[in-house]
């Protein structure tokens, strides 16, 4: 039997899925976390059933790609579990009544039952059951309460005995149902609800937004550095002696030794610079990237589950319209700072192709993933905060320019925001840890093979002399335009595979701070890593991907040349930071009136 989990966005379908199947999928407190379907199994033998977690949908008329996926899946299942948010019964029933048209057996699960009780919402499930003609089961996906009853009652699933076609009749029916089954008890607003009302305050709202971002960045860097310190201590105390013993056993030199351990630096093994799988590979993956990834996802996970991201999206809506996007695009962009791949996938929540293209270009060109950022912070940061700030100020400038450019020249329109704002919810430690574990495991299993693979590749390419050959070929750009030594060629080639390894390779080169900054920036801009490229191809199609690559190469050429001409020759990094940020703001302000999109709200349903 194939069982579909169907419901509005953000009603907790993914949590129900995780609880039933034991598989972990990301669940957060904002609409649109799930953009593709997930499949799992529950039960054994005869009772083994396939469960499918379907992206959330508000109605049977899809308005974005995630909803299209959901709509298609409806034909595929045998039984529907319609998950409802009990705190929001009225709006949720709209989909329930429409699902009746599928003519499939259905049960209704009222999720967030405990939260509804706390909020003083009472629902007479017996009455609702007799009105809808299908089993209605109160559940709490977070604690797992009621899920067993729900599974037991699956065999009572019925095709709902009504069909309402017209929207106004449907809402009228919902009105009568609500009056019959729901009671509201007045109670005083909780602290969280007070906070909720504050979040759009013209002064405090914006201050909170800025504070949330700054505190998060600060915590990521501070705790990241702290974790790195601990891991570095462990590596030098326990791991390095082991490698030092291994090195002579492997003969101390030769291809095999070079690949595994790498070259000796001043006669000793250097975990950062030796460039072997067991030295630099292990150091980059576990010593630098892993700590930053962990703390980044810990903090992101907190804000996701607390429910702050949709509010940030609302606050940023006006600004985002300047760059051809609407507020919700903030969410995929933030996800991209972790890893571009989920960021690009989350673009399925955006309605128009134009928005997707603009956001994907900004991501692929200008947003370094956390793995890459962590190495940039470590490496560029050594030369002072101003160079590090310059990297990010330059990226900020690129986002603005790309966005404004896209907003002015890309055909189509960006509809204004329409988004549900979920209530604030206090994240549960157990759920948080599970999610963190899932994301870190995903990094370890998906990224680490690439990290080792790219180090292996750079060793082999060096040994075969390919790198020298290519270096001569592109020398006019590298040394001529960008003023960089030819040795950075290998890092550019590795950047196709893994950006973090590419930046880490710079450690072994002798570069001036300006050269290091320029190379780190070029590595961010010039091409997405293999994984991101694959997912962009899939989501945007060949034509748009080629366009994005054209823009990418132009941006890289211009940026590298501009910086090599100015940085530390004409201007110190501090001055460039101020200049770039000011230029971004002025550009955004100047283009605002002229190109503010005629708010063309009507878009064809698909």
């Amino acid at each position, binding site marked *: 039997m194939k069982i579909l989990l169907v419901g509005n966005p953000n009603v907790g379908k993914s949590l129900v899925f995780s609880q039933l199947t034991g598989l972990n999928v990301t669940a957060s407190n904002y609409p649109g976390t799930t953009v593709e379907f997930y499949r799992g199994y529950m039960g054994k033998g005869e009772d083994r059933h396939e469960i499918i977690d379907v992206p959330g949908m508000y109605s049977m008329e899809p308005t974005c790609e995630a909803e299209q996926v959901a709509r298609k899946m409806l034909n595929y299942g045998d039984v529907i579990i319609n998950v409802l948010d009990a705190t929001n019964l*009225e709006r949720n029933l*709209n989909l329930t009544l429409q699902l009746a048209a599928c003519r499939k057996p259905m049960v209704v699960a009222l999720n967030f039952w405990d939260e509804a009780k706390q909020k003083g919402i009472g629902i007479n499930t017996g009455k609702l059951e007799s009105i809808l003609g299908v089993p209605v089961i109160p559940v709490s996906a977070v604690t797992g309460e009621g899920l067993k009853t729900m599974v037991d009652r699956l065999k009572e699933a019925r095709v709902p005995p009504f069909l309402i076609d017209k929207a106004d009749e449907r809402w009228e029916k919902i009105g009568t149902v609500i009056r019959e089954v729901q009671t509201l008890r007045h109670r005083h607003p909780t602290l969280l609800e007070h906070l909720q009302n504050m979040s759009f305050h013209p002064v405090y709202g914006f201050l909170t937004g800025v504070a949330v971002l700054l505190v998060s960045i600060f915590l990521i860097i501070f705790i990241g550095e702290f974790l790195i310190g601990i891991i570095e201590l462990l590596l030098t105390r326990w791991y390095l002696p082991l490698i030092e013993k291994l090195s002579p056993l492997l003969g101390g030199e030769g291809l095999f030794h070079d690949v595994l351990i790498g070259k000796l630096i001043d006669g000793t093994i250097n975990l950062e610079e030796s460039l072997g799988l067991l030295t630099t590979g292990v150091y980059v993956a576990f010593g630098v990237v892993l700590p930053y990834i962990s703390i980044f996802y810990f903090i992101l996970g907190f804000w996701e589950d607390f429910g702050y991201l949709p509010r940030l999206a609302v606050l940023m809506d006006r600004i985002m319209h300047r760059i051809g996007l609407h507020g919700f695009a903030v969410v995929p962009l933030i996800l991209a700072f972790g890893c571009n791949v989920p960021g690009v996938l989350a673009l399925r929540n955006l309605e128009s192709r134009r928005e997707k293209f603009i956001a994907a270009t900004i991501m692929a060109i200008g947003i370094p993933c956390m793995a890459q950022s962590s190495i940039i912070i470590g490496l560029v940061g050594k030369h002072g905060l101003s160079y590090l700030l310059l990297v990010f100020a330059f990226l900020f400038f690129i986002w603005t320019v790309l966005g404004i450019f896209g907003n002015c020249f890309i055909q189509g329109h960006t*509809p*204004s925001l*329409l988004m549900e704002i979920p209530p604030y919810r206090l994240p549960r430690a157990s759920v948080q840890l599970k999610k963190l574990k899932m994301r870190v495991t995903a990094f370890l299993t998906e990224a680490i093979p690439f990290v080792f693979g790219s180090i292996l590749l750079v060793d082999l390419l060096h040994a075969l002399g390919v790198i020298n050959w290519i270096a001569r070929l592109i020398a006019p750009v590298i040394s001529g335009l960008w003023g960089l030594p030819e040795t950075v060629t290998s890092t550019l080639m590795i950047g196709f595979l893994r950006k973090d390894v590419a930046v880490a390779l710079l450690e072994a080169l002798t570069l001036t701070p300006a050269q290091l900054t320029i190379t780190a920036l070029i590595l961010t801009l010039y091409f997405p890593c293999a994984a991101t490229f694959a997912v962009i191809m899939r989501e945007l199609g060949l034509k748009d991907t080629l366009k994005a690559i054209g823009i990418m190469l132009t941006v890289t050429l211009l940026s590298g040349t501009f910086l090599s001409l100015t940085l530390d020759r004409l201007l110190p990094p501090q001055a460039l930071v101020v200049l770039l940020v000011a230029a971004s703001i002025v550009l955004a302000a100047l283009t605002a009136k002229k190109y503010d999109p005629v708010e063309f709200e009507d*878009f064809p349903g698909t």
Partner: protein
Amino acid sequence: MGNKQILPLSDLPQGLSGRVVRIDGGLGIKQRLEAMGVLPGVTVTKKNTVFGHGPSIISVAGSELAIGYGKTQKIWVEVEECEDSSRRQP
């Protein structure tokens, strides 16, 4: 109380409620708003707006929605008399 005021949702003062009387535009916008519970005959309450033509936060059908300025200009509401004392003077 003969002449009830009809104005676009974007101009509805914060804290007031209004009954939706008309939504301008084609099927696309109407369907999308309807799916979220915004359709003629429904009462919406404006809870907040972000300044400078930002989105409005409204509560409707038990949930809170953020609606962009472009859309709020196309949703026409009839201002309702407030029953409770929490009314805020615009």
